[in-house]
């Protein structure tokens, strides 16, 4: 059994290409200047269609997390950490916190993006704790 692969679309292609190249791509609205995630055909803040792709800095904080003790399938060996990460640019995304013990993770912990290959073609953004999660 393999891990779940995202069904990519033409719209989200730049995001997934970015992941493969080690960059977290976000949409930014040139009308209102705000960032959004997930990618859309229009700005979720002001409804303008003038969106550009930018590279996020990769820094974030943990908005919430859980340690999954019963995995979704054999391809997801438990325990693993599912988290909601607030990116420095504003948007929130779901991800995994990797290479951390469950007890090291807390709401508000600082994290940085990394990329993990889910298949030959698809890499996913995942996050690692920075400085043990505490802002220095």
């Amino acid at each position, binding site marked *: 059994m393999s*891990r*779940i*692969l*995202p*069904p*990519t*679309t033409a719209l*989200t292609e730049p995001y997934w290409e970015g992941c493969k190249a080690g960059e977290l791509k976000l949409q930014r609205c040139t009308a209102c200047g705000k960032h959004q*995630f*997930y990618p859309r055909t229009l700005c979720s803040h002001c409804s303008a269609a003038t969106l550009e792709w930018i590279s996020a800095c990769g820094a974030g904080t943990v*908005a*919430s*997390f*859980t*340690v*999954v*003790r*019963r*995995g*979704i*399938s054999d*391809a*997801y060996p438990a325990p*693993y950490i*599912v*988290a*909601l990460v607030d990116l420095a640019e504003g948007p*929130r*995304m*779901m*991800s*995994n916190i990797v290479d951390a013990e*469950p007890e090291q993770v*807390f*709401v*508000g912990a600082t994290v940085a993006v990394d990329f993990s290959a*889910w298949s030959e073609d698809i890499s*996913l953004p995942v996050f690692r704790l920075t400085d043990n999660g505490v802002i220095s």
Partner: protein
Amino acid sequence: MANQGLRGEVAIVGAADTAVGKLPGRTPAELCVEAAVAAMADAGIDKSQVDGLVTCNAMAQPMLYHAEAIAEYLQIFPRYCISVGAGGGTTFSILHHAASAIVTGMADVILISMADSMRSGLTREQAMLVQSSTGHPQFEQPYGPTVPAYYALIAQAHMAQYGTTESQFAEIAVAARAWAARNPAAQMRELITVEDVLASRMIADPLHLLDCSLVSDGGSAIIMTSAERARDFPHDPVYLLGAGEGHSHEHISQAHDLTTSAARESGARAYAMAGVGPGDMDLAQLYDCFTPTVLVELEDLGFCDKGEGGAFAESGALRPGGSLPVNTHGGLLSHCHPGNPGSMFALTESVWQLRHSAGERQVADAELALVHAQGGIMSSHTTLILGRDR
């Protein structure tokens, strides 16, 4: 503006559940039909009197045109016929719509019947698919979140923001079980303690096994008609006094607030329509797929202040004899949870409570009940207020 148009306009005149729990060899359609026939019998009507039918699809037996298939099975020929799917919110959002259908003359007598066989009817592959197909296909599912994990994210955020504890979540499961112990129909009736909940195995931190609802087979149905007609039925009518909805997101990663839900809006709209407030309720049936769901609903529906849900539950308020009886049938945590039809059982229980026929678990002199369901991951909320009097 609050819509007061539906206040007191319709009533529930029939209610019935099938047996619940593990019912191997029974298809969801058979359970749906059994519940429907029992609800019609409870209302004292013949199937020819039903001119509206509402169902929800069954995960264990999906059909392209579910309501039509059930109508065909029953050989009824409604002029209002619809199957709906809004997760756990399905039951009450469609009750809201069906009430409008009666008021606008689309139907006179509506049968709402729902059933599924989540316990016996799903193959392992189907069960896995149900789990993994919840969540955004591109931006959530690949990370392997489980359904308990989504609610754990809410619980963890609430703990961080308000200091809520695992023991306080556990108390909600303990209260549900105390009610179920008084309900012969409930799937799990053995009393449990907070320690039992905390000692049960961790599923997704901070949720233990006993913080999670059951997986069940079962069906449930009600009959609804206009308040005018309702007086001609054998049982005391239970009137719909308020209804309100709130919809904030589908995917939890898109929720603007993890610890405050659109129950705040659905509740405010229902209270406004009914002209009552949380303090007027004799009991509340709150959607309890996981214990933190109840805690957030208690706050957002105004039964306690924001952040005080943990302390409120810990006070014993939800238990038999408490200040706010919650989930008097045992809820999804201890009575049964057959998937989308789950909150039907909270509705039929409310009918029995307001008819004063709930036996050992009867809340004395119950006049007003709030019933609330949510679907998705705290996404779609519907609040209903039911009463003995118009």
